[in-house]
């Protein structure tokens, strides 16, 4: 029973989402608020279990060093008490610093060294030539400070002289990459809608043969 009601309710909610495309309406607004509320509830439940499982429980078992993050967490709320509000910067600084460290370790090998290494290819066939020149010119396209164009002001920096060929090659590679990535993703994106239509017109209004 609850499942039957649920299935029809699901159908209505999906239609409410689609209705956004055609006209502003209450159905979408209610669905949106219901969803934002649920998502926030889920985040709060998860957050609490993180504090409990990673902080409070081990603390009770004697891992006293966990006082540090717990105090930092509480300090976030110092901003509501004016005389101590500057203390709220401690946890902010901690989160930024740790995230900066994590970012560097995440990109420096996988995105920088490994990628540069992978581009060192013998240019003995067309594919490798395109790969090396395409990657290098894309990188060159983004140069911010042109060499040999000092003091001519910011505007002049747009003209790269002999570098124009490289820039155009870079631009062409980027455009081809963007276009083809876009095209590659179309199938996955369309399939989301196909699946919802199969649900609406298969399970709720049985039109589609199983």
């Amino acid at each position, binding site marked *: 029973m609850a499942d039957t009601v649920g299935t029809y309710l699901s159908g209505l909610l999906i239609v409410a989402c689609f209705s956004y495309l055609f006209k502003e309406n209450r159905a979408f607004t209610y669905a949106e608020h219901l969803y934002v509320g649920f998502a926030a509830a889920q985040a709060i439940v998860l957050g609490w279990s993180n504090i409990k499982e990673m902080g409070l429980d081990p603390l009770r078992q004697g891992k006293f060093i966990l006082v540090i993050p717990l105090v930092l967490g509480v300090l976030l709320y110092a901003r509501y008490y004016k005389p101590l509000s500057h203390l709220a910067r401690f946890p902010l600084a901690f989160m930024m610093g740790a995230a900066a460290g994590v970012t560097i370790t995440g990109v420096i090998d996988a995105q920088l060294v490994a990628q540069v290494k992978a581009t060192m290819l013998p240019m003995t066939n067309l594919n490798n030539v395109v790969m090396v020149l395409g990657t290098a010119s894309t990188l060159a396209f983004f140069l911010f400070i042109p060499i040999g164009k000092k003091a001519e002001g910011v505007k002049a920096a747009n003209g790269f002289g002999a570098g124009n060929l490289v820039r155009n090659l870079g631009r062409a590679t980027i455009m081809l990459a963007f276009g083809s990535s876009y095209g590659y993703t179309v199938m996955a994106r369309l*399939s989301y809608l196909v*699946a919802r239509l199969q649900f609406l017109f298969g399970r709720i209004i049985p039109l589609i043969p199983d």
Partner: protein
Amino acid sequence: MSSPWYERLQSIPKPAIYATLILVFLVPLIRPMGLPLLMSENTRKAYEYIDALPEGSIVFHSIAFNPAVDAENWPQMLALVRHYMKNGLKIIFYPTMQEGGMYAERIRSTYAAEYGYEYGEDYVILPFKAGGESAIAGLKDFWSFMPSDVDGTPLKDLPLFQGFTDMRDVDVIVPCTGSSDGLFYVSHLNAAYGTPIIMAGTAPVLPFIGPFLASGQVKGAIIGLSGAAEYEILAGVPGQATGAMDAQSMGHLLIVGLVLIGNLGFLYGKRVNGKNGQNGRRS
């Protein structure tokens, strides 16, 4: 009707485009047209590997997807499971994502009876375990990590697990996912026991597993909705992916058609008005 035709071609209202898209999808869904499919080598390899397994072999089917991507993963899973059941393979379902259990339950409630599959004897559903990579690495210590099934029945009481010592008794692992779970199976279970792996994944999964396909650690891969459709055809099982592929093809054609129409209007307009192309902002 003040604006000339070539300007109207460039400004079809969005609601009209959206309604057309729904129609273009619905017609082939209701009346499949049987448009041609490309057959990819990876799907064929996956099919051939599963098809060659002798009756009674154990498949370990891992489920790590949720409703955001189930449009791609669920048809793959259904086609695979129907193929297992057709060939009399034993199945162990293992959800490594919270929502994954729901899809295994759907097999139990709707599809198992079609092939006369008995729970406990022919297939078993394991409980969800949190922890991502560690929930997969933990399988190496099978009996202490996984004492009972999703209903709380001790695994040693289930016929399927009579004589099961550990993950070495599994004949193939099939991770069905939109995330990196497949890689964890490669680096933990394939590395430890050499258990072969067949991937079923969403489109972005392919680049990740490419190197392992090349090295042979992954025996085959079913990628995206097209992979599911190809598998349905190879295995000769019914499913919704094949019908959906007609809709996909029509959708792609609609988009290409719209691009052509827009450009026709744009280029003609440019010839008429000289160089007054509109909307030229872009970095």
